[in-house]
C-alpha cells in the first residue's frame, strides 16, 4: 500500500513523536509513505473561520498534489482529516468550485476531486484490517485500560466526514482491542479537548480538557490515546495547567494512536518518542511490563 503522507504542521514540529511513531508503524506494516515537501497547512479550522473559500482553495491545492501522484492521502491528525475532507465536500458546490478553480487554474493546478482522505485510524482498521494488526502484535497490551479520545473533526459533522457515527464510534476501541488493551468507554471520548479556544480563553479550554480526563479516569482508564496531535497538546502539553485550573491532580498519560500500535508491535518507548511527553507514560508502560526509556 502506498499513500501520500500528510503529516500536518504539529507532527513536523512540537509533535514530532507522532511522526516518528507513524513512520515506525507504517514500516512495520509495509505501508509506503510518499512525501511531498509542497504540502501546506490545512488551515486547522482557524483559516476556515477567517475565510472559508481560501481554506478550501489551499486544501484543493494539497489534494491536487496527491491526485497528480495518483495516491490517496494519509492524515495523522483529526483536524487535518476534517479540513481536507471538508474541502472535498465543499468543492461539490459549483459556486465554491468556480471560485477555487478561478484561483488555481492560473497556477496550472487542477483538482478533479478523486483523492480519498484517510486518517491512519481508518487505514489501520479498514485497509490493513484488524486480523492483520493482531497478527503483528508481539507485545499484547493486556492489563492496560485505555480511554480512546477521538478528536471532533475525525467524526463530525458525521454526514460530511462520511465514516463513523458522530457520537458513538467504535473503530478506535476495535483497534485497542486488537492490540490486546482494554478499551474504556466514557462519554468524553467523543467530546472536545478544548484546543480551539486554548488561545482565546485558556481557563475554559482547560476546564473542558480536565473534564474529559476526569471522565476517562472515573471509568477506569490507566491512559488515554488520541489520533489527533492538537488533542494531544491539550491533554498532555497543557495537562498541568488544566490540573491547576480545576484544582486537582490529573496524572493521565496520553498516547498518540500509533505509539500504542508501535508498543504492541515491539517498538521501544524511545523509538516512539515517548520521552517527549510532558506527562510521564511510565506508569502505563509498567502495566505492560515495560520500563520507560532512560
Amino acid at each position, binding site marked *: 500500500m502506498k499513500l501520500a503522507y500528510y503529516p500536518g504542521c504539529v507532527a513536523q*514540529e512540537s509533535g514530532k513523536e507522532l511522526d516518528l511513531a507513524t513512520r515506525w508503524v507504517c514500516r512495520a506494516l509495509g505501508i509506503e509513505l510518499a512525501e511531498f515537501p509542497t*504540502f*501546506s497547512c490545512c488551515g486547522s479550522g482557524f483559516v476556515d473561520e477567517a*475565510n472559508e473559500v481560501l481554506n478550501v482553495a489551499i486544501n484543493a491545492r494539497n489534494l491536487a498534489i496527491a491526485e497528480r501522484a495518483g495516491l490517496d492521502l494519509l492524515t495523522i491528525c483529526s483536524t487535518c482529516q476534517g479540513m481536507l475532507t471538508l474541502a472535498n465536500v465543499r468543492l461539490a458546490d459549483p459556486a465554491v468550485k468556480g471560485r477555487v478553480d478561478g484561483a488555481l487554474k492560473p497556477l496550472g493546478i487542477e483538482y478533479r476531486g478523486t483523492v480519498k482522505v484517510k486518517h491512519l485510524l481508518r487505514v489501520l482498521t479498514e485497509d490493513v484490517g484488524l486480523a492483520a494488526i493482531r497478527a503483528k502484535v508481539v507485545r499484547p497490551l493486556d492489563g492496560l485500560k485505555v480511554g480512546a479520545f477521538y478528536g471532533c473533526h475525525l467524526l463530525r459533522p458525521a454526514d460530511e466526514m462520511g465514516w463513523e457515527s*458522530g457520537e458513538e464510534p467504535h473503530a478506535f476501541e476495535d483497534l485497542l482491542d486488537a492490540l490486546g488493551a482494554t478499551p474504556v468507554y466514557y462519554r468524553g471520548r*467523543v467530546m*472536545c479537548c478544548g484546543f480551539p479556544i486554548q488561545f482565546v480563553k485558556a481557563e475554559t479550554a482547560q476546564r473542558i480538557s480536565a473534564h474529559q480526563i476526569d471522565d476517562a479516569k472515573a471509568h477506569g482508564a490507566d491512559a488515554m490515546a488520541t489520533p489527533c496531535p492538537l488533542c494531544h497538546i491539550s491533554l498532555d502539553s497543557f495537562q498541568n495547567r488544566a490540573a491547576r485550573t480545576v484544582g486537582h491532580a490529573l496524572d493521565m498519560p496520553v498516547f498518540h494512536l500509533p505509539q500504542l500500535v508501535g508498543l504492541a508491535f515491539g517498538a521501544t518507548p524511545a523509538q516512539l518518542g515517548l520521552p517527549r511527553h510532558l506527562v510521564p507514560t511510565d506508569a502505563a508502560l509498567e502495566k505492560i511490563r515495560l520500563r520507560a526509556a532512560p
Partner: protein
Amino acid sequence: MAAATTPTILDVYRFDPTKDSAPHYQRYTLDLAPHTPVLSALLQVRAETDPTLALRYSCRSAICGSCAMQVNSKSRLACETQVGPEMERHGRIVIEPMRNQPVLRDLVVDQAPFWRRYESIEPHLILDPKHPMPADRPTSMTPAQVERFQETPRCIACAACYSACPAVSADAGFPGPMALAKLYRFVVDPRDSASTERLTRIQPNGLWLCLRCHLCTEACPKDVRPSERIRDLKELAVAAQGGTEPGSRHAIGFKENIRERGLLNEMKLVRQTDGVVGLLRQSGQGLKIWRKKPEIARRPHPIEGLDEIEKIYAALDDPKEERP
C-alpha cells in the same frame, strides 16, 4: 399484522428534590416493537407502571420541541428516537434529562437559563426607525437573500444543541448554539438594521468560545447545523470588523501565519494572538514544553511552492476580493 416485540430495558433517571437526597436510576422492562419511539415507551411506563414519572412532551411529532432528553448520552427528541437501534447498540436505553440545565424533577429541567441566553442576542428584527415596515403591504426579499438563512427558521427551540454543548457546560459566557444560529439569521436578514451592532456585541460576548466540535449539529433534530451557522457568523465578524478579540485575532493571525511559510509557526502564532503580555504570561508553560519539544521555538522551513500559496491568497483573500 402486529410487529414482533422484544424486551426493551429503560433505565430512567429519577429525582424528586422534595424526597430524594440524590438522583437514582429506575429500571423498567417493556415488550416493544423496535420502531416504538422512546417517548411512547415512557408514556406507557407512566400509564401502566408508574404515574409519578415526570417528563415534558406535547405534539409527539417532532414539531413542538418539548421532549428533548438524553437517550444513551445523546441529546435527542424522545418522540423521534426509536428503541430498536438503541437496544441493539447498547443493550439498554439510559434516559436522562438534558444537560446544562438544572433538573426540576425526573426528566424535567429548568429552561430559564437557556431562554435567558437566547434573549440576550435580541432574537427579533431591529428596524431602522427612519425606514419602518410598510403597514399596507408585505415586505419582500429575493430568493437569494432568503437562502442565506434557510436553515435557522426550522429551529424548534428544543434545546438539544444546548444540552450537547461542551462550551455551555464550561463557560457561562457562551450563549449556546441555538442563540448564535439565530443571531446569524438576524445578521444576514436584509430587513435588520443592527447587523453591525450585533457583530460588535457578540464578538467579546461568546462568539469565539464556540469549540466547533459540531456536537450541536449532530444533536439538532431539524438540521439547522448550528456549528456551521456559528462559523458563518465568525467569518462575517472577521470580514466586517477584523481582529477585535483574541478569537478573531487568532483566526486572522493563523491565516497570515500560513501565508508566510505555508506551515504553522507555533511561537509566532502565540505572539499574533495574545501580544507580548500574553507571551510573557504563557512563557513559563512555553519553557516547560520547550524542554521536551525544542522544535516549538524553531521557525518551520518554508514549503516548496510557497509562491502558489501567495497567489491563492492574492486571488481569494486580499481586500480587493469582494466577500459576502
